[in-house]
């Protein structure tokens, strides 16, 4: 699979003029429907008045249980339906040795999951849940149903100084038909999933949104964190457009949540040996 992607990317680079040197979305994701890179590159999406792809609509991720764990995981009470593939390329995260020890602890203590206490998920975690995009030339607003989370992707300006946030700070730009979003200012409290996959405040996420047909958008994110990972990790999944009559509805979270602290020991854990490292 990898050599094919590389050769497709190389062909694209060689064949296209500089302004159109756009990396196509990958041929497929570990989970969900496959995307044909040739068709994806040939797709000419509807454009907004300022000439960029029109991403507006309600999008439903096909993230294969990523909210439970972004890595392959079995089915279970706290693990949803399970996923044989997960959404991370290669099926594992490049943890540094100390971090590989820590994740073993965290997966045995899923009651520590901050989203169980109604904290913001962070990026990319929030993207595993349905959202609606409202697009203007300088700002693209992404409003999620889950946790009534939202973020504004600014198409100008720079990341602020001395600011850390659960959802980070998002600055976007267009590379051909792909919206590329640079997410910095992430705090060290958000996590990638309920299983506890984690990062530090050095996390830097680069997201790529590409329409591949009228009702499908490819979502990819590169996760870079020199304090936790030995090298960047990559994840991705497709998003499907919701039917026209769909509306997002309010999801309040902090309505007197009292259950999580009472989870019996052992319920909220992943099995031993779940992680290769």
């Amino acid at each position, binding site marked *: 699979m990898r050599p094919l992607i590389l050769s497709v990317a190389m062909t694209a680079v060689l064949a296209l003029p500089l302004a159109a040197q756009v990396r196509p979305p990958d041929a497929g994701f570990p989970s969900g429907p496959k995307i044909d890179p040739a068709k994806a590159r040939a797709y000419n999406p509807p454009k907004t008045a300022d000439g960029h792809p029109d991403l507006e609509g309600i999008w439903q991720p096909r993230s294969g249980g990523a909210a439970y764990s972004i890595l392959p995981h079995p089915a279970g009470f706290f693990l949803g339906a399970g996923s044989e593939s997960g959404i991370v390329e290669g099926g594992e995260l490049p943890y540094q040795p100390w971090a590989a020890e820590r994740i073993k602890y965290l997966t045995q203590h899923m009651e520590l999951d901050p989203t169980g206490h109604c904290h913001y998920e962070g990026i990319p975690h929030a993207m595993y849940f349905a959202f609606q995009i409202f697009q*203007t030339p300088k*700002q693209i607003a992404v409003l999620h149903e889950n946790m*009534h989370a*939202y973020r504004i992707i600014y198409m100008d300006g720079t990341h*602020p100084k001395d600011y850390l946030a659960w959802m980070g700070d998002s600055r976007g730009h267009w590379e051909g038909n792909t919206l590329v979003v640079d997410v910095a200012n992430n705090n060290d409290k958000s996590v990638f999933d309920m299983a506890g996959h984690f990062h530090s405040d050095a996390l830097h996420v680069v997201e790529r949104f590409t329409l591949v047909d009228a009702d499908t958008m490819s979502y990819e994110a590169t996760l870079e964190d020199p304090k936790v990972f030995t090298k960047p990790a990559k994840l991705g999944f497709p998003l499907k457009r919701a039917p026209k009559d769909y509306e997002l*509805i*309010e999801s309040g979270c*902090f309505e007197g949540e009292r259950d999580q*602290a009472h989870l019996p020991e052992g319920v909220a854990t992943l099995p031993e040996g779940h992680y290769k490292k």
Partner: protein
Amino acid sequence: MRNRSAGFFFAAVTLLAQSVPRTSDGKPDLQGIWMSRNAAGFDVTEIAEGHEIPYLPEALEREQKGPRVDPIAHCAMPGVPRITYMPFPFQILQRPGYVVFMYEYMHDQRIVRTTPRDHLDGIDLWLGDSVGHWEGDTLVIDVTNLRPETWLDSARHTHSEALHVVERYTRTAPDTINYEATIEDPKTYSKPWKISMPLHRITEPGFELREQECSEGDNGRAIHPPYRPAPKS
């Protein structure tokens, strides 16, 4: 003389109507970052007509017996109209058929459609169900399906689940929106009553909303059982 001043008035109104900046679909452009600058979040009577709320006696009695802790202290969303006069900025974004409100406070949000539909059935929401439409240059939002737990302010002015709020947003100057809301609740008030206040644009260049998280460090230990019980000694 009378005719002349009427003429001036007419000209001024026409000029104002023409000068309201409009979005591509011809609606008044309400976009930007706005904030109320008052203390209504602490006591809503500040912006109430006559500074009074026409309570029914039984509602006052219910209020006296009700909870004494402001729900927002537990990070509940503040409800409508309270979210509008919380002392935090909010951003309005308009797209054809939509007016989107993104509040800095507790990252609350309202996606308001301006195409008519019936209110939702059988569900209540912290920020209610909002259905919008334009009346001339005024954005009118009809809000029902509100939860009975929210308060109108920290002063414990309350309402029931029968609350029905009609909000009106009118841009009256480049940096001002006039906000009015009619508050109706036959289980709590003897008649509908009104609040009104200006919303001021934040004109500071480069101003952006920041994240405001409420459940952070809130609560857990104070109002819940310990996160992980300490070992018994």
